[in-house]
């Protein structure tokens, strides 16, 4: 590389230049064969990297382990905060400590009910499925493929239907453990959103409701002896539509 504008050319190829400097480089490229080759080489190699460079994805079990770590760590710090070296009681009337007090009171008040626990477990399983490489065990939009796949793996047989015409495309299914129970999961795509629908046998311990956890909408309902829980970053109204479709289907 001998042209003294080579770095500039690279910066141009990396989109690091403002409009005026970019224009100057474009003019330079018209006359300098060396920089033109450099530029084209970068663009070409970028395409090759996009196509072929390996992007390593963490295993689902690892992601799960990290989530547990954080929950544990969170528990430690929260338990420590009021009784540790922090002058909690002495400063209890100060602004900062008042906030801490409010936070620790909220902790007692908001001890999770079974339902809240399930909602946050379902949310965690949803996030895990998106981060890790375990969104789908059986990839198919054909319910004749997905439905038999669950037989023998799950203790229930969930209603499997593709609602592509209504905007919810079935992309597959998987098994997941939530709340210590094995769940059959139907995976739908709705525009840019992924919807996980968890299905268990309805053992009567949980009631139907809607909730949002960490910005994810969660909607649960019962139908035909099954308990359903749909989670997605799609809007609540959209989840409701999918829920209606599935309910209509399971009552037929």
């Amino acid at each position, binding site marked *: 590389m001998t042209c003294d504008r080579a*770095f500039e050319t690279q910066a141009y190829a990396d989109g690091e230049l403002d409009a005026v400097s970019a224009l100057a480089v474009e003019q330079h490229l018209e006359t300098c064969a060396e920089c033109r080759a450099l530029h084209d080489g970068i663009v070409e190699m970028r395409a090759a990297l996009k196509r072929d460079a390996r992007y390593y994805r963490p295993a689902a079990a690892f992601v799960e382990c990290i989530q547990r770590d954080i929950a544990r760590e969170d528990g430690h710090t929260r338990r420590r905060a009021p009784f540790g070296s922090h002058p909690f009681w002495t400063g209890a009337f100060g602004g900062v400590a008042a906030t801490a007090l409010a936070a620790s009171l909220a902790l007692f008040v908001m001890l999770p009910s079974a339902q809240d626990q399930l909602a946050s477990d379902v949310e965690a399983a949803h996030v895990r499925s998106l*981060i890790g490489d375990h969104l789908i065990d059986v990839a198919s939009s054909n319910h004749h493929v997905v439905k038999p796949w669950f037989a023998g793996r799950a203790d229930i047989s969930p209603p499997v239907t593709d609602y592509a015409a209504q905007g919810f495309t079935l992309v597959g299914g998987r098994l997941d453990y939530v709340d210590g129970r094995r769940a059959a999961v139907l995976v739908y795509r709705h525009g840019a959103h992924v919807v996980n629908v968890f299905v268990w046998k309805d053992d009567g311990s949980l009631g139907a409701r809607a909730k949002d956890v960490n910005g994810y909408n969660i909607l649960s309902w019962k139908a035909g002896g099954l308990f359903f829980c749909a989670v997605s970053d799609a809007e609540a109204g959209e989840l409701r539509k999918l829920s209606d479709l599935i309910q209509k289907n399971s009552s037929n």
Partner: protein
Amino acid sequence: MDERRRRFEQLVLPHLGAAYNLARWLGGRDAEDVAQDAILRAFRAFDGFRGGDAKAWLFTIVRNCHYTALGRRRKTVALPDEGENDIASDAPDPEVSAIDADRARKLNRVIASLPDEFREALVLREMEDMSYREIGEITGVPIGTVMSRLSRARALLRQSWQAQTKETAP
């Protein structure tokens, strides 16, 4: 769940995959340990996170954890050699032709063989779309150094890539 953890799970945790990928490209085999260490450190230090790009912030921690672990290992045992079977053992995708798979394998081997500081700059730039400024902050060097590292990385990549493809040309 308290506000702090909720924010962490919203801002930082979604980058766990990227953190793992970076750890994998930086060092290889103990990427899970490094990524785990980094995430927990990030969570403990989260109060000190003053906004900005959470991904770049996490990458800085991943990189520090990687070099800390590397220092520890160097004192005790020799580094395991990053053999090619690491990448060659990837399960083949039946959709991809043998020629395509071979080409991809070679490219990944070439990236893996780049010197550390060049590979890290290249991965941050081309896989993670980090800007020069961000790469400089993550790796603790001035922007000028980022530019020369990227330039060297690309030249080396091109060189070994051409050598590789020539080898197998009929």
